């Protein structure tokens, strides 16, 4: 479903942040590789996994600017699996062992 080989780095504005099972989602208004700004649906692990690696349910807020490294959907739709997020304050978080680390910086 996700293209783990061709990861993408994007910076954009958080439109929505959903802290829920079975996956946490970030909606991010950002430009992908084609330069077109779209609303991306970015899938994260679940609250349990993320809590155990230091995330907090309210650490991402609507309107904030964040940078993500993601594995995009193979279909070309604006959806992706998170590999790493850099918050507005500079803190970096991974997405847990199942998602794996990013392969770009």
């Amino acid at each position, binding site marked *: *479903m*996700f*293209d*783990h080989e061709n990861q993408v780095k994007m910076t954009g504005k958080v439109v929505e942040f*959903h802290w*829920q*099972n*079975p*996956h946490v*989602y970030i*909606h991010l208004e950002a430009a992908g590789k084609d330069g077109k700004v779209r*609303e*991306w*649906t970015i*899938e994260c692990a*679940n*609250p*349990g*996994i993320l*809590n155990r690696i230091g995330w907090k349910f309210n650490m991402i807020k609507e309107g904030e600017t964040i940078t993500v490294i993601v594995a995009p*959907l*193979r*279909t070309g*739709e*604006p*959806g992706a699996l998170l590999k790493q997020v850099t918050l507005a304050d500079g803190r970096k978080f991974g997405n847990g*062992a199942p998602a794996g680390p990013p392969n770009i910086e």
Partner: protein
Amino acid sequence: MRQTIRVALLLTCSLAPTAWSQEFDRRDFSGTWDRYPQSLDSRRDPSVVPAPVDIPTPPLKPQFVAAYEADRKRRADADKRGEPIATGYTHCLPDGMPSMMMAMFPMEVLQTKRQVTIIQEAYNQVRRIYLNDTTPAIEDAEPGFWGHSAGHWEGDTFVVDTVGIKEAVQVRGTPHSANMRIHEEMRMLTVDHFQNEVTVTDPDYLTGPWKWKWVYQRRPNYKMYEYVCEDNREYADPESGAARLRVVK
């Protein structure tokens, strides 16, 4: 002199019995547990307790092997293409038994006089093992995800038998009948590890017992999270069966 040594020994024992002798209650599994080893977690030391071996191929009767292998190949090929086939999780379904006991997420064991309750964080799964009870006859065992479990102690081994698992609740796509029985033998390996030796039998589908071991490591002071499969954006493609992600258009 002999009396002095005896007093000193008694004092040592009473002050720190666990540290001194590593004695612990081998009939107490209560607490929170992770599956072991956690390969990406540096706090875990696989040298303490040997890692369990992977679940072997089920000893299916010859007439069921081709369909099983074809399904495995279909899934492996889809994974290779990067288009994994949807699973029960895609439909918000829990593991059920026995897969629940792989402890995908932390697992909590509660022991009371009449039952042992095991809670798996993923999908809020709960199984109740009634002590000194018997499993119902197959024709009376209403099928479910966790079935009907009866447990008893044989020395320091907690022996549990389970029947009544829905046929759609499978381990890695392995078919089974209403006659499937899950036999578990749980025992403490150290104060912080316990092992579950699982034996699955099914006279309709298997030629003999299908066995493996799971090991768990204590996760002290952990508070379990809730898990409601509330808003799953993943779905199964109706044509290919591949997992898809619903995105904002």
